[in-house]
């Protein structure tokens, strides 16, 4: 029952839910959590394949992904605090400072 097939189906489902969240939501926190969900789905795939091929490299890569997402969390959240102080909203559609001129900030 618990074959590589079912584990990978769960990972694919979680990854697709993450894509749907990134595309369809406008709240920046939920977009961020959907990104983290996609990273976790990839982690699950790495761990499942590591078990399947009897090699520990997949688990090492998923540790690297966890460290990377910790670094990403620190940067992303400080950036969100900065943007929320300037713009006063959590809508991702108004976070377009890179597409505007300097005096529009």
């Amino acid at each position, binding site marked *: *029952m*618990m*074959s*590589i*097939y*079912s*584990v990978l189906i*769960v990972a*694919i*489902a*979680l990854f*697709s*839910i993450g*894509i*749907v969240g990134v*595309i*369809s*939501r*406008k*709240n920046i*926190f939920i977009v*961020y*959590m*959907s990104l*983290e*969900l996609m990273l*976790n789905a990839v*982690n699950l795939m790495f*761990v*499942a394949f*590591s*078990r*399947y091929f009897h090699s*520990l490299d997949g*688990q*090492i890569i*998923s*540790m*690297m992904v*966890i*460290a*990377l*997402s*910790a*670094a*990403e*969390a*620190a*940067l992303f*959240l*400080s*950036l*969100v*605090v*900065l943007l*929320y102080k300037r713009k006063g909203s*959590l*809508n*991702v*559609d108004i976070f377009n400072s890179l597409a505007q001129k300097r005096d529009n900030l």
Partner: protein
Amino acid sequence: MTDLIFIILSLSAILSALYMVWVREPIISALSFIVTLLSLAGLFALLSASFIFLVQIIVYAGAIITLLLLIIMFLNIDDESLPKEPKKLLYMVLSAILVAPLDMALIKAVGTLPKKDMSIISNFGSVKSLGLTLFNGWLLPFELVSILLIVSLIGAIVFAKRKI
């Protein structure tokens, strides 16, 4: 028994992930995401990755999501500054249609894998073997990750300064 635990854990992971994407308030969404992360930690334990199980609980559910909850509470968002999403359901259905072909291709590709026994092995994925693999074959990526963490720390401090 393992199958039952697997089904419960995957169902709770998928359902709480759906609720996380669906719900309007970010704090309820973050709490629901913790349920997803803990169920994924259980799945890692079922796949005999005991160290990843611990790291998932301590780093993800313990540090990252706690930091996220702290930031959400720190910003003290009132109901007006949440973005209004009247067409949320429509966008979700459209994006689900968009990712459906990708899912079909992936499921078809996964179905061609040969079957193997996936039951729990006791010695696979222990801290000792993982550490030996990490420091024998993956030393350079390990050091690069430490540099990455320091860079992101400096970046967060620079962002948090009053004037940039």
